[in-house]
């Protein structure tokens, strides 16, 4: 949640910039936003009318860039490299950081080999340096590097901008979590009731035994 706090001001700033700039200077705003080292969310900027109105103009491709940073990965960029404008190093780094967040959405354990392939990194040292300096130390990801199993175990990853189709899955997960919690609480209640009942029965049985012993002593 730290990430959201840190980037809230930046989002406001770039949204204002997008509102206030004319069409010709919006590409610069987009490049600046996608190069900023502390910004990892772009939905708000994408939603600005000035930006959406770039579609169909000669600057339409910059909306695609913004879309890529909102939802896409480094691989997506490589597949469309001819169509899209060239990226500055800060943008490339940002896109690779965002790619790691996307991988972490579906898997908690990220194999080194897959990461090296997806991020165009040639060796483990370079990969680990990237994960340490650009991902963990920038606060977007928390996890542990496992050299023996050659993987990165993710404990926390910042959320990326959501695609509409992801919403349903999220709601289902939340409902499932809520249901599991409710069921567990019911289960615990049952166990408490069972324990109480058992305890009562034991006490009663104990008393019966003691009463019979007393009666036996008296009669003898």
């Amino acid at each position, binding site marked *: 949640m730290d990430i959201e706090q840190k980037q809230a001001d930046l989002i406001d700033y770039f949204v204002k910039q997008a509102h206030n700039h004319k069409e010709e200077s919006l590409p610069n705003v987009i490049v600046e936003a996608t190069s900023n080292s502390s910004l990892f969310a772009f939905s708000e900027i994408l939603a600005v009318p000035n930006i959406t109105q770039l579609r169909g103009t000669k600057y339409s491709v910059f909306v695609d860039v913004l879309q890529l940073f909102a939802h896409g990965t480094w691989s997506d960029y490589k597949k469309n490299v001819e169509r899209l404008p060239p990226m500055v190093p800060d943008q490339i780094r940002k896109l690779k950081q965002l790619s790691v967040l996307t991988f972490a959405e579906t898997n908690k354990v990220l194999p080194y080999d897959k990461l090296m392939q997806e991020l165009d990194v040639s060796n483990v040292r370079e990969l680990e340096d990237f994960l*340490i300096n650009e991902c*963990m130390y920038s606060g977007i990801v928390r996890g*542990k*590097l496992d*050299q*023996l199993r050659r993987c990165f175990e993710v404990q926390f990853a910042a959320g990326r901008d959501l695609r509409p189709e992801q919403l349903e899955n999220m709601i289902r997960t939340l409902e499932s979590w809520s249901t599991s919690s409710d069921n567990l609480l019911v289960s615990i209640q049952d166990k408490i009731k069972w324990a109480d009942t058992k305890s009562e029965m034991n006490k009663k049985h104990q008393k019966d035994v003691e009463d019979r012993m007393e009666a036996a002593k008296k009669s003898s």
Partner: protein
Amino acid sequence: DEQVLIIREKLAELYESEEEWSRAAQMLSGIDLDSGIRMLDEAYKLSKCVQIARLYLEDDDAVNAEAFINKASFLVSNSQHEVLNLQYKVCYARILDLKRKFLEAALRYYAISQIEKRQIGDELIDEEALEQALTAAVTCTILAAAGPQRSRVLATLYKDERCSKLKIYPILQKVYLERILRKPEIDAFAEELRAHQKALLPDNFTVLDRAMIEHNLLSASKLYTNISFEELGALLGIAPLKAEKIASRMIYEDRMRGSIDQVEAFIHFEDDTEELQQWDQQASLLNL
């Protein structure tokens, strides 16, 4: 005796003016402060002990300085002389620093940096002096052995607003956040250090090297579940076997949790918290 005392003091003054600190100190140490024949007042004795210690410290002679500061420590508790008391504290801190008792030195420097009075006796305490004391506290803490005690002092310093204005703040921040320090940062830090803080140790590492390697090792333990000796060596900038040795010492001294597999040549950094305890630690997730 009175005349000898005066001569010695005058000669010491001359030596001081020529920056021959140790000679000045030797001249003054010839004054018999403990003689039963003459009654010298406690304040005078204290001032001489502190003065001699300060002179020896100008030549980084911790051994002789300590001898006189130890004498002074019997006198300082009864002293009402604020300037002398302050000078005593500063000497003590510097001696600990020279003897590489860095954490203790840091605490004493920090206490000095928190002096509120801006005038003590005739001496004006300027902000720069306090800043120097604070910087010295930070430096010594960074050089101290990595572990829980140092972490506590680091936290205190990091949360002290004054530190954020120091030139040394960026490295303090990284050390506090347990982040790996890279060579350019270490080299920049090294430029601000004094000779004894970069001195060579028996194991062929300097004081600074050892502090940085141990810090980086601890930082690595936060990032890795396990790491090979070779990669660890590469990360720390030292030979793999040396990395293993330093790691094993830190584990043995309980300054780092882990185990070493010499067969596979791996270090495993352990968080041996019980499973259910780990699960409980995630309770904050429910709050979120």
